[in-house]
């Protein structure tokens, strides 16, 4: 079924940028917000807002019901139990929670090995690297090839390290590669499997039970939701024995001056006043996506990605990264021979209204790895990145491609 997007829902797209129609191709950084979602959030603030779980009055009751409904929506979306759905401030927080809690609980110990991949976003690198300095566990990497791709062979080689924990992205935010999670689960059957779903979840309905995931993190703002809210899915039996990460109100059962006992899951992981309107808004965003249909969305994005790769491949002055095959979804990184990515992005924005990202995309090691395969005279340690989502069209791709041609002419 073709995707039916109402462009009225995205008034940002009707705006002009620098006198040009806005072509928004920075979806991997964050997505636009549907007006209906924003309006419902305002309605919530005005008609049903209060602090949750705490008071017996009517507004508190409405707010609590709305908050827990959002949890139920997410649980259904992932095929998880509501008690396995923890709201966080974002994907980064989710990973920090997992690493710290596993350490505090003694599940991750000195001498253990954590296997990451070389394709990770800093969010799934820095917490492990830095805390390994304090706690003495080891880190090993699944290697990327010269196109930045994680192959099945490389994944298999990771077995040598006998990792206790495997933490990998589900979808690279630089190369656009969708990682074969079924294969990863098969290869590391006994490891605790943590998946960074920041890029994957906005594009694909996952079944955490089917995939056998132990932890999954993602962010609302990359899937039409508000900023400041994300989800950590955790397997019930693990969550139950884990020490919380953040401590404060609502996550405790009893407090004396000497001792603390904790509330049950998921509450023991949600300390303090949560991003209530954010959580409720993420629920609305999910409703919006479900109404469009995840299957249609995925198909639309796959078609556009194919077209994007096709058109960019025609430009002999452009170098493309990533798998460039069926596993390549939404995100396309490239460079223009002789022109620095910042200059490309700046001119695309100023002269053509096209918003793309340039830089290391918070994945410095991966971008440096691309230097191994480059044919550019001078690899800039960064790339231009275009990423498409549900409201993009082939026309958007055309505008960018035309822009690149002109730009190459100007800069020579």
């Amino acid at each position: 079924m073709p995707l039916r997007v109402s462009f009225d829902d995205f008034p940002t797209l009707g705006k002009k940028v620098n006198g040009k129609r806005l072509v928004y191709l920075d979806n991997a950084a964050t997505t636009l917000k549907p007006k209906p979602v924003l309006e419902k959030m305002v309605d919530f603030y005005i008609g049903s807002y209060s602090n949750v779980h705490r008071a017996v009055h009517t507004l508190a009751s409405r707010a609590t019901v709305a908050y827990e409904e959002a949890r139920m929506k997410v649980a259904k979306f992932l095929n998880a139990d509501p008690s396995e759905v923890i709201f966080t401030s974002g994907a980064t927080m989710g990973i920090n929670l997992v690493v710290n809690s596993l350490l505090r609980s003694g599940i991750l110990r000195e001498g253990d090995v954590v296997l990451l991949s070389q394709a990770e976003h800093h969010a799934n690198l820095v917490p492990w690297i830095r805390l390994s300095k304090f706690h003495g566990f080891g880190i090993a990497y699944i290697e990327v090839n010269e196109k930045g791709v994680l192959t099945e062979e490389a994944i298999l080689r990771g077995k040598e390290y006998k990792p206790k924990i495997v933490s990998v992205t589900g979808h690279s935010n630089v190369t656009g590669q969708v990682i074969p999670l079924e294969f990863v689960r098969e290869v590391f059957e006994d490891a605790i499997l943590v998946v960074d779903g920041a890029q994957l979840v906005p594009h694909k309905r996952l079944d955490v039970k089917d995939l056998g995931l132990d932890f999954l993190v993602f962010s609302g703002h990359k899937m039409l939701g508000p900023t400041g809210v994300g989800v950590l899915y955790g397997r019930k039996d693990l969550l139950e024995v884990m020490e919380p990460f953040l401590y404060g109100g609502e996550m405790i059962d009893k407090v004396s001056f000497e001792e603390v006992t904790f509330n049950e899951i998921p509450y023991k992981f949600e300390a303090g006043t949560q991003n209530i309107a954010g959580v409720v808004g993420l629920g609305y965003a999910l409703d919006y996506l479900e109404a469009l249909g995840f299957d249609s969305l995925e198909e639309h994005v796959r078609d556009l990605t194919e077209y994007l790769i096709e058109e960019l491949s025609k430009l002999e002055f452009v170098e493309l990264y990533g798998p460039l095959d069926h596993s390549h979804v939404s995100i396309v990184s490239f460079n223009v021979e002789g022109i620095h990515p910042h200059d490309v992005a700046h001119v695309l924005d100023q002269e053509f209204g096209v918003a793309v990202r340039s830089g290391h995309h918070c994945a410095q090691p991966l971008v440096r790895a691309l230097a191994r395969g480059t044919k550019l005279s001078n690899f800039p340690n960064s790339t231009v990145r275009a990423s498409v989502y549900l409201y993009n069209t082939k026309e958007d791709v055309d505008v960018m491609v035309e822009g690149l041609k002109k730009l190459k002419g100007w800069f020579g």
Partner: protein
Amino acid sequence: MIYSDAIMDYAKLRKYRGKIENAHRIEEGKNVSCGDEITLYLVFDGDRVAEVKFEGQGCAISQASTNVMIEVVTGKTKEEVIEIAKNAENMVLGREFEAGLLGPVLLFQEVGKYPMRVKCFLLPWKTLQIALER
């Protein structure tokens, strides 16, 4: 109003209050969010719940619910009690339930309209369930 005369009478009932020395089972229950706490003392006669008393305090709803619960379950088999508890929970959560099993528990049907008070009603029932399932 959920504070009917009947519920208020049950809230003030004294006869099930107190400790039972040599109880077969003692179970503590609490509501994290409001701090209500009760302790149930259970005496069994074979498979039957022969006597129950409670200590602790809380709001009128939790107190009344505890008294009604004790009245209803006393003399029943464990299996019957678990069945009643399930139906009480279903009632207050707005699911299907068998009214015939519940007797005066039906007085609390309206509590289901107040999500923040459901826990008050359920406190004794949850505590009893845990005590019996141990």
